[in-house]
C-alpha cells in the first residue's frame, strides 16, 4: 500500500482536432482534499471523466491504492472506490431520494427497509435532512448535492470527485459543505475538488494542482499561494477584476418598475411582491439573492415572458407593462438569459442563425419581413471580431463553441441594435476567466456609453465589483439595499438568506 489513493501517470487524451489532456501526472494522497484548478476547457473535466471511467485515456495509467487499474466504465471506477458528484446533478426529479440513491446499487442491500436504514445513516454523515421517501424535486440545491454525495458513499466510495461543487451554492451553503468535507476528511475520505473559485480552493484544499490547456502547470501549497498567483498560473498571464469605481450614473431614468406583483400559478405565496426599482442610464443595478427567490421571475416579467399581476413597468417613459416580448426587445431591451444553452441559443444552428434570434424583425438581419442571410453572416462576423468570440467561422453550430465563447456571442448579440437597457442574468456563470474578463470589459464599456444594466448574479464578487447599486431579493421582495463600495460578500450573503434579521 502506498500513501496515494489515486495516481494518474502520463495521461493523454486526444479528440478530433484537440488534445484535451497531454501527459498529465496527478497524485492524490489518502485523506486529503486535492484541488484541481484550471479555466473551463483546460481539461479538468476530461481528466476526471477518465478517472471515473466515462472515457478511456489514449496513453497513461491509473493506479488506485498503488495497484494499476483499467476502467472501462463508471461501474469499474465505483468498484475501485471512486465516486463522482457531477456539477450538473445526476438526479431524477420524479424519483424519491432513496430511489435516486439506490438506483444501480440495488444489489447491495435491496431496495427495502435495510437499504433505507443505511441511507438514513449516511445522510447523517453528510448532513442531509430530507426523508428517504421525499421526491427529489422538492429539495433545494444544497440538499440535492448532499443526495449526490450519499449516492457515491452508498456505493462504498472512499475517493470522491467533486466537480465544481460550489458553483450552485451561496456562501453560507459553501461553508456548510466545507464543514461536512472536513468532517469526512477526518474519517479518512479523500476528495478531488474541481473548481475555479480560488478563494474557496485555498480555504479547503490540502494540495492544489493547476491545469492549463490540457497540461499540468504545477502544484501549489494553499497556505503559501495567493489567489492572484493561482489565477495567473491558470490563465498564464495578468488578471482581470470586475472593479468599476468611477461612477457613470446619470439621472436619466431608463427602467422604472413600480409595485410589481406576480401571483403564483397555483395560489400560494406570490412570486413577486411590491417590487420597485429604477435603473438609470449608465448605471448597473445588481440584484443579489439566493436562487429561487424571484430573480428569474422578475427578469421574465420585465421581458414580458410572464404577465405581471399588478404594477407597471416603464422603459424610457413608455409604459410597456402590457407589451409583448418582441415589442419590448424592439423598444431597446437586450437580454442575456440565465441558462444560455436552454434559453439563449439554438445549439444545433450556426452562429449567424443564432444572431437573428430576437432580432428577426429588425435590420440589419431582417429586411422587409424577410431574413437577410448575408447581412446576418456579415453582422455575426462583426460580433465575432468585436467581442473576441473564438470560433472557426460563423457557419459552425453554436454547440461547437465553449461556454465562454457562446456567452460572448450572446452578449454581442444583445448589445447589437443599440439597446437602452441590458438585462444580464448570470452573465459569466460557467465561463472561464478569460471570457469572464472579456464580458466584464464589455459591460463596463457599455455602461460608460450610457447603457442601463440590470445585473443578476450569484457571484457576489462580480455583483459587488460591477454594480453601482445593489438590491437584495428574498422571497419575491426587494428586502435590502447595499452600497457596493462598502459591502462585503459575507454581509450580502447574510442579507440574502434573511439571516441579518432586517434590511441592511
Amino acid at each position, binding site marked *: 500500500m502506498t500513501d496515494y489513493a489515486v495516481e494518474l501517470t502520463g495521461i493523454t487524451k486526444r479528440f478530433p482536432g484537440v488534445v484535451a489532456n497531454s501527459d498529465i501526472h496527478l497524485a492524490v494522497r489518502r485523506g486529503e482534499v486535492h484541488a484541481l484548478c484550471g479555466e473551463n476547457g483546460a481539461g479538468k473535466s476530461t481528466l476526471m471523466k477518465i478517472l471515473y471511467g466515462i472515457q478511456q485515456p489514449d496513453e497513461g495509467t491509473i493506479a488506485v491504492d498503488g495497484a494499476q487499474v483499467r476502467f472501462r466504465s463508471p461501474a469499474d471506477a465505483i468498484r475501485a472506490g471512486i465516486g*463522482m458528484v457531477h456539477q450538473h446533478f445526476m438526479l431524477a426529479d420524479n*424519483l424519491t431520494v432513496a*430511489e435516486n440513491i439506490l438506483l444501480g446499487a440495488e444489489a447491495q442491500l435491496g*431496495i427495502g427497509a435495510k437499504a433505507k436504514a443505511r441511507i438514513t445513516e449516511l445522510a447523517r454523515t453528510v448532513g442531509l435532512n430530507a426523508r428517504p421517501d421525499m421526491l427529489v424535486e422538492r429539495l433545494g440545491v444544497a440538499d440535492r448535492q448532499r443526495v449526490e454525495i450519499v449516492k457515491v458513499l452508498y456505493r462504498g466510495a472512499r475517493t470522491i470527485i467533486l466537480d465544481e461543487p460550489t458553483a450552485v451554492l451561496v456562501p453560507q451553503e459553501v461553508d456548510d459543505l466545507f464543514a461536512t468535507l472536513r468532517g469526512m476528511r477526518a474519517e479518512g475520505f479523500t476528495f478531488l475538488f474541481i473548481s475555479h473559485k480560488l478563494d474557496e480552493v485555498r480555504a479547503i484544499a490540502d494540495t492544489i494542482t493547476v491545469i492549463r490547456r490540457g497540461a499540468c502547470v504545477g502544484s501549489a501549497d494553499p497556505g503559501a499561494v495567493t489567489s492572484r498567483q493561482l489565477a495567473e498560473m491558470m490563465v498564464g498571464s495578468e488578471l482581470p477584476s470586475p472593479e468599476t469605481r468611477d461612477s457613470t450614473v446619470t439621472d436619466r431614468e431608463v427602467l422604472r418598475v413600480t409595485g410589481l406583483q406576480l401571483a403564483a400559478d397555483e395560489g400560494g405565496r406570490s412570486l413577486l411582491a411590491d417590487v420597485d426599482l429604477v435603473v438609470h442610464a449608465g448605471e448597473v443595478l445588481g440584484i443579489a439573492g439566493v436562487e429561487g427567490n424571484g430573480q428569474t421571475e422578475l427578469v421574465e416579467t420585465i421581458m414580458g415572458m410572464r404577465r405581471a399581476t399588478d404594477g407597471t413597468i416603464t422603459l424610457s417613459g413608455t409604459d410597456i407593462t402590457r407589451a409583448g416580448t418582441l415589442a419590448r426587445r424592439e423598444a431597446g431591451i437586450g437580454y442575456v438569459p440565465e441558462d444560455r444553452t436552454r434559453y439563449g441559443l439554438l445549439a444545433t444552428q450556426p452562429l449567424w442563425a443564432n444572431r437573428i434570434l430576437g432580432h428577426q424583425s429588425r435590420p440589419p438581419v431582417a429586411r422587409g419581413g424577410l431574413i437577410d442571410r448575408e447581412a446576418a453572416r456579415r453582422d455575426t462576423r462583426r460580433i465575432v471580431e468585436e467581442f473576441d468570440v473564438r470560433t472557426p467561422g460563423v457557419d459552425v453550430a453554436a454547440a461547437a463553441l465553449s461556454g465562454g465563447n457562446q456567452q460572448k456571442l450572446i452578449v454581442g448579440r444583445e448589445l447589437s441594435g443599440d439597446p437602452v437597457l441590458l438585462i444580464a442574468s448570470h452573465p459569466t456563470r460557467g465561463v472561464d476567466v478569460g471570457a469572464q474578463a472579456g464580458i466584464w470589459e464589455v459591460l463596463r464599456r457599455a455602461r460608460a456609453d450610457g447603457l442601463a444594466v440590470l445585473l443578476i448574479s450569484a457571484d457576489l464578487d462580480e455583483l459587488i465589483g460591477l454594480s453601482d447599486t445593489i438590491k437584495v431579493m428574498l422571497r419575491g421582495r426587494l428586502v435590502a439595499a447595499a452600497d457596493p463600495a462598502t459591502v462585503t460578500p459575507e454581509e450580502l450573503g447574510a442579507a440574502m438568506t434573511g439571516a441579518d434579521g432586517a434590511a441592511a
Partner: protein
Amino acid sequence: MTTLTRARAGFGTLPGWARSAIVVAVGVGLLAVTATLTGQIQLTSSGTTQAAVRLLLPILFAALGGLWAERAGVINIGLEGMMILGTWGAAWAGYQWGPYAAVVGGLVFGVLGGLLHAVATVSFGVNHIVSGVAITLLGLGVTKYLSTLLFLPVSGNPRQSPRVEGFETFSVQPLADALAAVEAQQRVVLSDVAGLLGGLLSGLTPLVVLGFVLVPASYLLLWRTSFGLRLRSCGENPVAAESLGVQVYLYKYIALIVSGALAGLGGAALTLNPGQLGYLEGQTGGRGYIGLAAMIFGNWRPGGLLAGSALFGYVDGVQLRAGGEAVHALLYGASILAVGLAVLWVLQRRWQTAAIALVAGAAVYAVYFSTETVPREFASYAPQIVTLLVLAVASQRLRPPAAIGMEYRRGEGD
C-alpha cells in the same frame, strides 16, 4: 367550511387505494342515480358491464404497453401497429391450434413490432413518432400481404381469417348467480351495483383475467422492484442512470419488447372477442391510440390507465348494448357530474373553473332536455368523443416521465 377544508386535505393524504375506492364509489353512485332517474336500466346491467369488459380489454393491453414503453422514456405511438400485427398473429395461430396458441401468436407478433421500434429508436436514434408511425403503416401493409398469402386460400377472403375458436367463458360462482338474482329484483341502487359487479364476475375468459392481473403486476414490477426502478430511471434521467451503471439500452429494449408483447395481447384480445372471432382487416380501429390516450389520462400509472380504459370500454359497451337512448341518458349523468364538480370547486374557491363546469353542465343538460335520443352516428362515436373530452379536461396536471421522447446516446451526457 373548516371541516370541509379538512375533509379535502384528508382526501389528499389518503393512500392511493382509498382515493381510488372513493372515486369508484362516486362513479357507481352516479350511474345508479342516472339509471334510476332516467329509467335506462341498461346503464348498470350486467350485460353492459360484460360488454364493457370485452371492449376495454384490448385498450387496457395497449395502455399497459404504452406504460411500459413510456416509463422507459420511449414514446410508443406504434402501439396501433403492434396491435395490428397481434391481431394477425393471433388469428393465424388461433385458427390452427386454438385460443391459447392465438394468445401466444398475438404476443409474438407484437414483440416483433416492439423489437423493431427498439432497434429504430434506441439503437439508431430515429425520432420516436416517426418510427411509431412507420410501424403502424408497416403493420397494416404486412398483415394485408400475409392475409392475402395465407388466409385467402383458406377463408376465401383476403381481408378475413378463417374462424378462430374462442375461449370457454366462466363465472365466479356462487357469487355471480347471487348478484344476478339481486339484479333481477330491480331495487334502487342495490340492483345497479349488483349489475355492475355481476358483469365483472361472469363471462370471464383467461385473457380477461390476465389483463386484470397485469395491472397490479405491472405496478409491482415497475414500482416495487429494482428492475422497475432501473427501467423507470431510463425514462426520468437516462444520463444519470447510465452514470450509475444502468444499461439504459438494455432496459429500453426490454421495455419495448414487453410493450410490444402487451400490444400484441391487445390484438389477440380483439381476435378472440366473442362477437367477432377471427382477424378482420381494420379491426383495431385506432384502439392502440386510444390505449395510449387512456394511459396519458391515467397519468402514466397502472391504476389510472385502468380507469381510462374502463371509461372508454363502458361508453362503448353502453352504446353497443342499448344504443342512442342509453348514451342520451349518459348526458344526464354528465350534467350531474359537472354540477357536483362545480360545487366541489366552489368549496375550493376556484371560481373560474367552477363557473366553467356549471355552464358546461347546464349546456349538457339543455341538450339532454331538448332531445329524445342521440343520433345513431353520434352514439357509435360516443366513446371517442368521451375520450377526447376527458383527456382535454383531465390532462391539466399530468406528470409524464421527464426524459420521454428524447434521443439518448450512450456516453454523451456531461
